């Protein structure tokens, strides 16, 4: 990103007895650059306290710790003494957003420059005070040291003078070899508050006079209210009011429902359950997973609506092939089910709104609150609490729109609280889909790869004008470019079942089908599955075009490196431990590379994932603990969806509603995990999603090694094997 640095960093609050640098992080609209409005701050006070604001929402991905670490590294301060605060949403500027594993990669340069600029100013101030040249001074642990006589000035002693200086244009940045904080293992900055339960999540937000709202929505997707009998609900002590409201024009903004407003969460929940509502199902009561599977099968049996990639001629290659493998893979809808069910607090006054709650997109919350209230966005503030999990669900702010809508209608602050059933049955699910393969083999190698995919499309669901294949399949993903004849086609399916972004969108399905199919090819060719992948990648470093998020290219050498590393970690060339069977998978996504080996055991026809090895190259690692935590968590999530994850639709509604039917992995099912991070000086890349996509294929490839049964439809629990 090109930034005019004079506009990018400035001294704020000069003469306040502190050095306060405001700076603008990516997302800042360039046309507004003349009007400098910082959206992040670094403050050093005379008493030597360093405060850094963390800009992005903390949803468990660790940015509240890792982003400030980048500033602290350049600033040369003792990390243990830095105070990290959550920045509120800035009312005019910028992208404060958690999604796409982007926080580190997009803020890396700016945060380094901000830290370096502050350090440079403190050095300049020391140079004047001590009357020694800059090059005689060094910064260390919050002090500027005169290297000739070891005289020291604390940052606090220098802030007044530093604040009177202009910001430097190109402060020198540290070299990677000199890092003493970046790459170290640091615990999360909120940990003490988290283990004592003393930090607020959205669900804990409270204001004076606040009421609670629970909302009943059409059990069948897309249904509308015909009639309401609220007599029983209104008899419940504490229930104040029942309010019907319409949805917005786009169902990803807000769907309508019937709200029960009460003076406690429990009364609101009880009231919701006591409502008797007749619904017009809009014809959607016939929708089912079976229907959708039939449509997927129908679509993948004919020419796709969208032709995404053609190399060579697959038809000729199939005519010429020694053998053709034909397979059909299928993945179900998945719910996000973050541990904190959706909730949001809105206080709509006559001409202003105060919002507060758990979201990955505070900007969208304001946008929607403005839409439902006709109050200008400039008059809407959004506080950000810690967020009890996102996984993509909180990229939509429908529940914030509900809170604003209800608060405006009743003229009081309202906290909308969803219960778990609301969360699971009114999610925006990972799209379900089918992937049909024909793969031609000729003279011991793969001569043709034809994938014909059909999925429900989240782009189609939200009425986006972007191509409906968007992020459901990836025309440049491996093995594209490594098979002489290649064809990829796609057909979207329209459905009332809501869909949205789910951790590693698209990749969570494509890595399963591609990396399973590669395994099938390796077995058909009688080759070792891991060595076959190395063979396909070939020697040297090919820079492959990759026209998607994480591109514009990827490196075959880096992919080979993680494969070789995981082979070494798992002793791939030796037999696995007794009773265990192995599978491998690899993936490139969002700029990072990962290879995984999974060991499973099978007892009484029940597969169990015993151990997962992962080798990951994400470039420079900021916080080692945070990075490992993300990778470990993505692996657990991956095992969970592989073994049990499925939302199935019957009569226009989901058959699952809580953790008894929508099962998440538990302690007794959790595998051992061993992770290695590849040492790298490459640009840091996001890690929040990358470890998940290879898991399903690696697990199912291991199950094949154990049982000879190929799992082509997830989850494993539906395969008759468990």
């Amino acid at each position, binding site marked *: 990103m090109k930034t005019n640095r004079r506009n990018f960093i400035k001294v704020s609050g000069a003469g306040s007895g502190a050095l306060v640098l405001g700076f603008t992080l990516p997302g800042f609209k360039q046309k507004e650059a003349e009007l400098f409005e910082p959206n992040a701050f670094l403050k050093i006070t005379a008493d030597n306290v360093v405060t850094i604001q963390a800009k992005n929402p903390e949803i468990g991905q660790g940015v509240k710790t890792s982003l400030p670490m980048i500033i602290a590294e350049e600033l040369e301060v003792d990390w243990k003494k830095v105070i990290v605060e959550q920045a509120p949403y800035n009312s005019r500027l910028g992208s404060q957003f958690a999604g796409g594993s982007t926080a580190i990669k997009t803020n890396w340069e700016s945060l380094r420059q901000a830290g370096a600029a502050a350090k440079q100013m403190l050095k300049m101030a020391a140079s004047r005070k001590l009357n020694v040249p800059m090059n005689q001074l060094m910064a260390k642990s919050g002090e500027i040291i005169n290297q000739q006589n070891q005289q020291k000035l604390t940052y606090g002693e220098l802030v007044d003078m530093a604040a009177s200086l202009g910001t430097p244009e190109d402060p020198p940045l540290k070299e990677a070899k000199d890092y003493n904080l970046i790459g170290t293992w640091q615990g999360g900055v909120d940990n003490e508050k988290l283990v004592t339960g003393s930090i*607020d*999540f959205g669900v804990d937000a409270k204001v004076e006079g606040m009421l609670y709202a629970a909302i009943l929505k059409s059990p069948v997707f897309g249904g509308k209210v015909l009639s309401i009998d609220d007599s029983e609900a209104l008899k419940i002590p504490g229930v104040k009011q029942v309010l019907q409201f319409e949805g917005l024009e786009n169902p990803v903004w807000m769907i309508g429902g019937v709200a029960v407003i009460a003076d406690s969460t429990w009364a609101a929940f009880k009231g919701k359950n006591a409502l008797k509502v007749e619904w017009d199902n809009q014809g959607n009561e016939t929708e089912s997973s079976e229907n959708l599977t039939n449509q997927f099968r129908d679509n993948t049996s004919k020419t796709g609506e969208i032709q995404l990639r053609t190399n060579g001629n697959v038809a000729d290659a199939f005519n010429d092939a020694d053998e053709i493998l034909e397979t059909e893979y299928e993945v179900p809808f998945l719910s996000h089910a973050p541990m904190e069910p959706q909730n949001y607090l809105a206080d709509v006054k006559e001409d202003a709104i105060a919002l507060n709650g758990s979201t990955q997109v505070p900007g969208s919350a304001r946008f929607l609150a403005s839409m439902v209230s006709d109050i200008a966005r400039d008059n809407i503030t959004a506080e950000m609490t810690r967020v009890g999990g996102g996984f993509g669900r909180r990229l939509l702010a429908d529940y914030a729109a509900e809170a604003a809508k209800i608060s405006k209608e009743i003229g009081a602050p309202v906290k909308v609280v969803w219960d778990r059933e609301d969360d699971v049955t009114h999610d925006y699910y990972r799209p379900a889909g089918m992937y049909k393969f024909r793969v031609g083999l000729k003279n011991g190698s793969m001569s043709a790869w034809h994938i014909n995919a059909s999925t429900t499309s989240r782009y189609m669901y939200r009425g986006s004008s972007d191509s409906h294949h968007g992020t459901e399949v990836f025309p440049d993903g491996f093995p594209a470019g490594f098979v002489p004849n290649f064809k990829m086609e796609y057909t979207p399916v329209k459905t009332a079942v809501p869909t949205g972004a789910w951790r590693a969108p698209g990749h969570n399905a494509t890595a399963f089908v591609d990396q399973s199919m590669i395994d099938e090819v390796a077995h058909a060719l009688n080759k070792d599955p891991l060595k076959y992948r190395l063979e396909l990648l070939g020697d040297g470093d090919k820079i492959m075009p990759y026209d998607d998020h994480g591109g514009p290219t990827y490196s075959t050498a880096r992919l080979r490196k993680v494969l070789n590393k995981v082979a070494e970690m798992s002793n791939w060339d030796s037999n696995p431990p007794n009773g265990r069977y192995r599978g491998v998978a690899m993936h490139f996504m969002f700029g990072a590379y990962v290879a995984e080996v999974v060991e499973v055991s099978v007892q009484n026809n029940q597969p169990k994932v015993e151990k997962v090895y992962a080798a990951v190259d994400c470039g420079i690692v900021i916080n080692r603990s945070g990075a490992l935590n993300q990778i470990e968590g993505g692996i657990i999530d991956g095992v969970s969806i592989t073994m049990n994850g499925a939302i199935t639709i019957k009569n226009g509604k989901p058959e699952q509603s809580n953790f008894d039917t929508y099962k998440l992995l538990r302690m007794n099912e959790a595998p051992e995990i061993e992770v290695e991070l590849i040492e790298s000086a490459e640009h840091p890349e996001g890690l929040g999603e990358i470890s998940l996509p290879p898991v399903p294929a690696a697990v199912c490839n291991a199950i094949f090694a154990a049982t000879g049964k190929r799992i082509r439809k997830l989850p494993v629990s539906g395969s008759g094997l468990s």
Partner: protein
Amino acid sequence: MAKYQLNINNENVEVEALEDTPLLWVLRDNLDLTGTKFGCGKGLCGACTVHLDGNPIRSCSTPVSAIGKRKVTTIEGISANGLNAVQKAWIEEDVPQCGYCQVGQIMSATALLERKPNPTDADINSAMSGNICRCGTYVRIRKAIKKAAAG
């Protein structure tokens, strides 16, 4: 509505609530003890775990009218002097990701260690499998429990 005399974290309090109100919502809405979290409402995920006379229970599915004279301990009262061994181990192992389930995990782990100071992996599985962590911190939770046990 009815009035209930409860002993919460060694203090006697009186609350007014519907008799079927789960203890969870009495703690959170009536008493502002918001460390205990809502996850599923059906005793399936463990986010709401508190101690009743020292035993871990799911406060989301325990009505306030069933508490009686038994002592309720929440995360706010789990350690009178600073952090307990489990909380310290949680910080040392950097267990939390989003952190939402961790209070429930800590309540279950603390009860486990009081019962079994040196738990086996099987003990950990049986005591902790009622607590879901959607972020997948199980590997670290297991390590932290063992660290807390080792003192």
